[in-house]
């Protein structure tokens, strides 16, 4: 509700009440006539309305902290007393001639004070809730905005992690092929271009199907096979139907990179990377498995970053920390990623 709308409704309520009070005073037949009853009603209620407005407005600028409500009680009492005093003073001057009115005014002063206190207190309470809620809403909006900005920046940064080692080594492989096998060199340039293009294109899309993600991963694997063909082989098994399930784009890419890095640099001889997918309770589960040597697992530059970034990304998107599991089994390193299939992940 805007301030204008509120003022309009507030005024309307009081006008109505002025009518009601005038009618009540008149019908009690106190003997001072309906004109005097109306004047009394207008003056006293206008002042009450003003007092209520002040009470509520005050809270916009200052709301005492916890345990300092006594301040509000004192302030309300004082204001009610002043309002009653002003009402008394005004009415004694305006209606001095009305027969029996002054006597009635004096007798009704305690009631008028109580009414003023009640109205003041009521408005204070309303104002408290109203402005409190408004401030909370503003805070909430600011927080949500901050979170959104952080998330965007973070996702951007995470995706931007280029793999210079991969890039330069691939270029070196192309350089080698260019001399002896130009057709293969051209093919690899094509693969590398498609891969890089994929990395850039996907940034605009939040989610993609497992099929699309795997096409991108496949490009990466193909390039790595040119570099390490003699040592690297892959087994990919996707459960039927899982190809159309959605996942955050480029989620699997860093995990596959990690698996390859560990597999190739932590062992000697042939390396087999397993990638399998399953559907479990409306969640897409992807398992990535690579050989590694527990006793010598060396701190590779960049390894570990992949895992941490994927975990962070899953947390930002789903607010869950249990979506990435790792486990070590007889010289095999196994990563399990779970992707909940939520509505908000639906591709538009």
């Amino acid at each position, binding site marked *: 509700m805007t301030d204008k709308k509120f003022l309009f409704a507030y005024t309307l309520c009081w006008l109505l009440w002025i009518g009601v009070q005038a009618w009540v005073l008149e019908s009690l037949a106190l003997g001072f006539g309906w004109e005097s009853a109306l004047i009394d009603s207008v003056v006293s209620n206008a002042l009450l309305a003003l007092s209520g407005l002040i009470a509520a407005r005050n809270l916009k600028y200052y709301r005492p902290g916890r345990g300092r409500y006594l301040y509000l009680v004192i302030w309300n009492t004082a204001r009610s007393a002043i309002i009653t005093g002003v009402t008394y003073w005004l009415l004694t001057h305006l209606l001095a001639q009305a027969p029996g009115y002054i006597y009635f005014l004096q007798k009704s002063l305690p009631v008028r004070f109580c009414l003023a206190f009640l109205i003041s207190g009521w408005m204070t309470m309303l104002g408290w809730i109203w402005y409190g809620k408004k401030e909370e809403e503003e805070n909430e909006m600011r927080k949500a905005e901050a979170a959104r900005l952080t998330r965007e920046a973070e996702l951007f940064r995470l995706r931007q992690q280029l793999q*210079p*080692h991969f*890039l*330069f*080594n691939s*270029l*070196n*492989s*192309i*350089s*080698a*092929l260019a*001399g*002896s096998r130009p057709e293969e060199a051209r093919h690899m340039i094509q693969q590398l271009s498609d891969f890089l293009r994929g990395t850039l294109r996907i940034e605009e899309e939040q989610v993609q199907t497992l099929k699309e993600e795997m096409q991108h991963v496949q490009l990466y694997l193909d390039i790595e096979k*040119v*570099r*390490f*063909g*003699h040592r690297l082989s892959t087994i990919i098994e996707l459960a039927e139907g899982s190809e159309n399930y959605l996942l955050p784009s480029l989620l699997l890419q860093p995990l596959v990179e990690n698996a390859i890095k560990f597999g*190739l*640099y*932590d*062992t*000697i001889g042939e390396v087999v990377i397993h990638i399998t997918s399953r559907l479990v309770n409306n969640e897409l589960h992807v398992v990535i498995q690579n050989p590694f*040597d527990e*006793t*010598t697992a*060396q*701190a*590779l*530059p960049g390894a570990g970053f992949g895992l941490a970034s994927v975990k962070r990304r899953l947390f930002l998107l789903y607010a869950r920390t249990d979506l990435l599991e790792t486990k070590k089994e007889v010289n095999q390193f196994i990563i399990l990623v779970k992707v909940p299939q939520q509505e908000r992940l639906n591709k538009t």
Partner: protein
Amino acid sequence: MKKAVIIDDEPLARSVILEYLAYYPDITVVQECGDGFEGRKAIAQHQPDLVFLDIQMPKISGFEMLELLDQVPPVIFTTAFDNYAIKAFETHAVDYLLKPFSRERFQAAVSKWMSYQQPLAAQVAVQAMLESGVYQAEQHQRVVVKTGGNIRIVPVSEIHYFEADDDYVTIHTADSSFLKDKTMQHFERILDPALFVRVHRSYIVQVQQITRIEPYEKESHIAVLRSGAKIPLSKTGYPKLKKVLGL
């Protein structure tokens, strides 16, 4: 006739070097190796005049392989991307090629190697670089050692203490000890000073292994490790240790 060895885990990377070397009839590639273990054997066997060495390779890096050799051969390093390594090369004027490299750049490196009046100068530079320990931060988490014919990768967390032993350093772990062709200064430089303290001219100890410090004879102290080993603390080593332990 000069002998060359190429050590790189990517066959295509090796083939570029082979192709560029075809222009030099007096250089023969005696062996191509896919990792540091093979490389070490090949160097020991052939005593090559020139080695092309990749840095990031399976199990042990090119640097670690060099540390395992009795004598460092003339080396031209090849690497795709490694900030630490490049910084180390530049500091010690060691020759290196950034992949992918052109034929011109390759020939410049080979000409430089040929022009050395004494190839030893280049080897001294490489040796100095290895000794400085600045080359790869990740590798300060482990030490590669020879035991008999085998190679072992020892994580530093498993090392209880280092002991000076003439020109070598003996590395003591829970169940064994290894000899490493390095100086105490080298380890003092590369190890995390919050974890390893040079408590004596001849000892560097992992502070987490210390259970207590006892007085020993007059005015001197010894540290007792969990394993029961007793390490003497020198006059300068004792205050250094106390400072690290926050005493």
